[in-house]
């Protein structure tokens, strides 16, 4: 039932920005070839090791290819031994050589797989690091276009696909290529006819793998599509399950699910079938190859030894396996490249809000905030703010109000430079916020959001987020100021109590108190409050209001109000309608003017109630 915090944030924050989704993505597609090259650069950072790995793979393949050769020599000597009683010593020598080669093969293989594990995981580490660090620099516009869930699953799945290819794909690819090459070379050196006998099935093998790949890819793509629509259907009907039950539409849902699930079943069976038959196909071709080698060997037996045929029988067996391996690696490669190109898209996204060259940090003396002729739109063509001009004097409280979508949150997003204005200027103590370092701007603006955002760490950690070098005493002091100390002490581990994801083990009100304490620690010059909509119990509500009042005192504050009563005491109220400032001034003055704010105030009260209130006032005056 409970929504996760990011869903709430999305829901609330996107009201104004909801149109953005419909605009095309700003991510620029990265070409597959480029993505592959850039992915490879992560591996090539360890050039020395990579060359070492390749050498090891080569040696390993040589050892492996020589074993059947010595087996063949051994068999010949064995025939000699049987027929003439000689050659026993050579057999011993050959088998020792074979054992040596076996050891060499396994040793080199161990070394290169080991090395490759280290390289691939280091590369994965760097890739993850680059990605995360880059995301930190991106502006909010980027996040508006990529819902967190989508971004998450994209990053997680894509990174996994890349990991698969890097840790298993690369060395197996070299292994397969070297094995094929070296075996082919040795075969051609020993006997061209038998070599051709082994190689004759090669085109058949390539053809069958190609055909299989082609159909398998179609099947998998269709499967992905069907799975996508089935998962979408499940996601929708299970999360909306209560609604379905309330309206007794279970039967219809089940019928439709039967349909989508059956579609998945059909294409799933096909995809799995195509996946399964690669192995028997390899076996078929290997076995046919054995027979062909046997026949050709028989045909030329006068010029050949039995041992040579035995060697080639082994090669025929070893040849098909790397071929089918390559087809597996190819499919890994495809998904790795697809993943990489999406990851690089993110890495290529340019932060839209950047500091000017050599911008100085802001110097806030008393917190004089000025908006001058500010125009703004999230999406070109759909203007949100029109010509907004107003001033907040040091220490003043400014209440922002207006209907949903009027632009209240936008003003705050502009002040903290989460977005840049299209026209006009915003300045703090006569310094334009576009001429100073954005980090310093945000450090001097404290923001308390309507949905408390907490990390799944201890309470202390979450408090300290406001000031990293705060001492424990400072944190406790801030918690006391925010009325959070008492409930924290009642928790089993006090300040060390770990919070569950999204602060789920605290009530909404407690979460708000924590974020207020965090703002106390940050001690900003200017304060921005996005007032909470959800109701909490009356005592917590009172605590929150008092704590906020304490926090605001002496700081220039902007409060977005959802209930007008909380901003009635503001120095100035700014009423917005469709992005224009329609009313400006203190509460009493605006009520007298009977303008837009008056109507908002009245609609909240309902006229009859106002009358009632007037009457009660009158009655009160009369009695006193």
């Amino acid at each position, binding site marked *: 039932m409970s929504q996760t915090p990011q869903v709430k944030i999305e829901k609330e924050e996107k*009201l104004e920005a909801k149109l953005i989704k419909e605009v095309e993505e700003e991510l620029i597609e990265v070409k597959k070839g480029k993505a592959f090259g850039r992915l490879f650069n992560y591996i090539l950072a360890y050039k020395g090791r990579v060359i070492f790995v390749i050498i090891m793979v080569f040696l390993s393949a040589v050892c492996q290819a020589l074993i059947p050769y010595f087996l063949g020599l051994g*068999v010949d*000597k*064995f025939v000699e031994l049987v027929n003439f009683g000689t050659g*026993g010593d050579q057999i011993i020598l050959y*088998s*020792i050589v*074979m*054992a040596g080669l076996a050891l060499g093969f396994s040793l080199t*293989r161990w070394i290169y*797989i080991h090395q490759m594990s280290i390289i691939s995981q280091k590369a*994965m580490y760097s890739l993850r690091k680059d990605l*995360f*660090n880059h995301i*930190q620099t991106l502006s909010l516009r980027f*996040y508006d276009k990529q819902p967190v869930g989508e971004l*998450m699953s994209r*990053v997680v799945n894509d990174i996994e696909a890349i*990991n698969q290819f890097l840790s298993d794909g690369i060395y197996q690819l070299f292994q397969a290529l070297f094995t094929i090459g070296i075996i082919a070379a040795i075969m051609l050196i020993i006997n061209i006819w038998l070599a051709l006998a082994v190689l004759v099935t090669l085109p058949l093998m390539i053809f069958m793998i190609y055909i299989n790949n082609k159909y398998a890819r179609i099947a998998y793509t269709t499967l992905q599509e069907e799975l996508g629509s089935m*998962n*979408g259907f*499940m996601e929708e009907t299970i999360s*909306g*399950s*209560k*609604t379905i*039950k*309330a*309206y007794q539409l279970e039967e219809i849902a089940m019928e439709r*699910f039967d349909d989508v*699930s059956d579609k*998945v*079943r059909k294409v*799933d*069976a096909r995809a*799995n*079938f195509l996946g*399964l*038959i690669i192995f*028997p196909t390899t076996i*078929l071709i290997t076995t*046919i190859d054995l*027979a062909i080698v*046997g*026949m050709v*060997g*028989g045909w030329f*037996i006068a010029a050949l030894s039995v041992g040579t*045929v035995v060697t080639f029988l082994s090669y025929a067996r070893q040849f098909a396996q790397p071929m089918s391996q390559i087809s597996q690696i190819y499919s890994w490669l495809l998904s790795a490249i697809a993943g990489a190109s999406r990851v690089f898209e993110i890495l290529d996204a340019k932060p839209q809000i950047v500091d000017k060259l050599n911008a100085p940090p802001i110097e806030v003396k008393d917190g004089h905030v000025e908006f001058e002729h500010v125009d703004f739109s999230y999406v070109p063509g759909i203007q949100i703010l029109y010509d907004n001009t107003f001033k907040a004097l040091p220490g003043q409280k400014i209440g922002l109000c207006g*209907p949903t979508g009027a632009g209240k949150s936008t003003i705050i997003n502009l002040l903290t430079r989460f977005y840049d204005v299209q026209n006009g200027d915003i300045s703090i103590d006569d310094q334009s916020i576009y001429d100073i370092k954005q980090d310093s701007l*945000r450090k001097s603006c404290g*923001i308390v959001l309507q949905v408390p*955002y907490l990390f*799944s760490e201890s309470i202390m950690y979450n408090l300290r987020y406001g000031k*990293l070098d705060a001492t424990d005493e400072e944190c406790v002091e801030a918690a006391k100021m925010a009325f959070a100390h008492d409930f924290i002490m009642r928790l089993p581990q006090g300040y060390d109590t770990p919070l569950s*994801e999204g602060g789920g083990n605290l*009530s909404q009100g407690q979460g708000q108190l924590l974020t207020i304490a965090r703002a106390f620690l940050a001690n900003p010059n200017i304060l921005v409050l996005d007032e909470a909509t959800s109701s*909490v119990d009356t005592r917590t509500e009172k605590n929150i209001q008092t704590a906020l009042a304490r926090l605001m005192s002496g700081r220039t504050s902007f409060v977005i109000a959802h209930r007008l009563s909380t901003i009635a005491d503001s120095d100035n109220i700014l009423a917005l309608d469709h992005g224009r400032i329609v009313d400006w001034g203190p509460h009493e003055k605006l009520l007298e003017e009977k303008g837009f704010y008056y109507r908002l105030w009245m609609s909240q*009260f*309902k006229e009859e109630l106002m009358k009632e209130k007037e009457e009660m006032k009158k009655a009160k005056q009369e009695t006193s």
Partner: protein
Amino acid sequence: MGNILRFLKYAGNYKGVIRRFFFAEILILIWAAVQLLIPILLQVLIDNGLTLGNLELVFDVCLLIIVLAVVAFVASILAAKYSANIGSDYAHFLRIKLYTKIEELSFGNLDRFQTSDLIVRLTSDVNNYRNAAIQIVYYLFRSPFMLVGGVFLAFAVAPPLFPIILMILGVTIFILYLYIKLTPPMYRRMQKRLDELNLVLQENLAGVRVVKAFVRNEHEMERFDERNVTLKEEATKPLKLIAILEPSLWLILNIAISASLFFGAWGYANWGFDITSGEIVSFTNLIFAIMGALVTLAILLPMITKAGVSLGRIFKVLEDNLDIVQKKNAVKVPEMKGRVVFNNVSMSYLNEEGIPNETPVIKNINFTAEPGEMIAILGATGSGKSTLINLIPRFYDVTQGKITIDGVDVRDMDIGDLRGHIGIALQKANLFSSNVRNNIKFGADISQEYVEKVAEVADAHSFITSHVDGYDRQVARKGVNFSGGQRQRISIARALARKPKILILDDSTSAVDVATETRIQGALPSVLEETTTFVIAQRISTVLIADKILLMENGEIVAQGAHRELLDTSPLYREIYESQLGKLED
């Protein structure tokens, strides 16, 4: 393993699966038998054909090999078809069973299983079982057959070399045992680290405004890097282990081949072994078959364990006891007036064992709603408002007391009839991917005019018709192409569409502004003839016109009455009123 047997019993002979399994196994045994026969044929080829120069025999044997290979191939392809189909059929079967069960679950059951949990069961758990089922059908019988047959044939072909087979079996099983024993915990640790890393990423993305507002980018990078380093270390460990285990298997195989040659020759020369070169080659080929079978089994076993765990999780849903079950002789309710009486009602949620929690969510609730009255319920989050109204359509059952509608206990009613008379707009407005019209009708049999009428009342008609497609406009998955307020208005229209005798609005105007809310409230009476209405609201302005207001705190009704009454009698009501609408007197 237990869960798999349990499943086979549960699925029974679904779609003739037993017969198909039987066929598949016969085909697979043919395939395996041919593969075992090839080394024997090679021996004949070498000893009787090539060594003796008997060309005719060489050709006959080779032709036989080709014919057998093709026969085996056909058998294996058919078996693959059977295996893939059985796997996908089972998956479909499980999905349908699970989904049907989910549709039968009561709200209480649903609260205990999260949506994401249920979806994981329907997707990855079903998938784990499907994969295992395919592999079991295709390989589980083939590998033991190849193993036993290979060992037997190896003994038959070259009895003096048999100790080599014993050595291979011993060492290989030991290495594979290490693999099965050591890698799963390593992968689990790695997965744990990966989850931790992803949590940092997830929180960073979701809390981007906080991170930016406090300028904590550097700090976040450090936090991520710490976990990234640990993940790198944990991820390398299993890879390094496999890097040593896999080559050791190759080492055994190759050493065994050289040993075959060595002992074959040595034994022939010194111990009088009766052995030919063809037998040695055949023997080495059988070693391949034996090793291959062992490795396949080692890969299969963890897969089966995983499938068993997944099945266990699936059964947990399938066998969950329903909290709410219709009585056998339930009363049919063709007509309803809508007089709702709560008689000393208390309710506790059930825990996982189906036993009520000790602390009730609502306690001793008593009130009566007369037909056509509007009842508003006011109170802080967690005070029990939603719980109270959820009892009326019997989404949950009371723990004590009873709720009657027109004098009949809701627990005695036919659930379908009961809910059929109730229109409800839940807190979270769910839209479904269809068009707007269907989302409003939602099963109700009403005309387009009536759809428009209820949309009008819910203040949805104007924004619906402002789009070119109007009522035919497609609703995207979960209604993401509509704003929160629009979704709520459509869901109110939906509740009205079924001409309910009882209407429940569960905080269903929280995302629309006050003016719109007022409009909706004003229009409601035009479609509600004699409908008892329950409204849950956070804003006091919403509840002013109600016939009766129930003020709730900590699960109890602390005051009830009309607005003017409560202003005088309840200090708490007055306090809430003033905190929201300002002081009554200055």
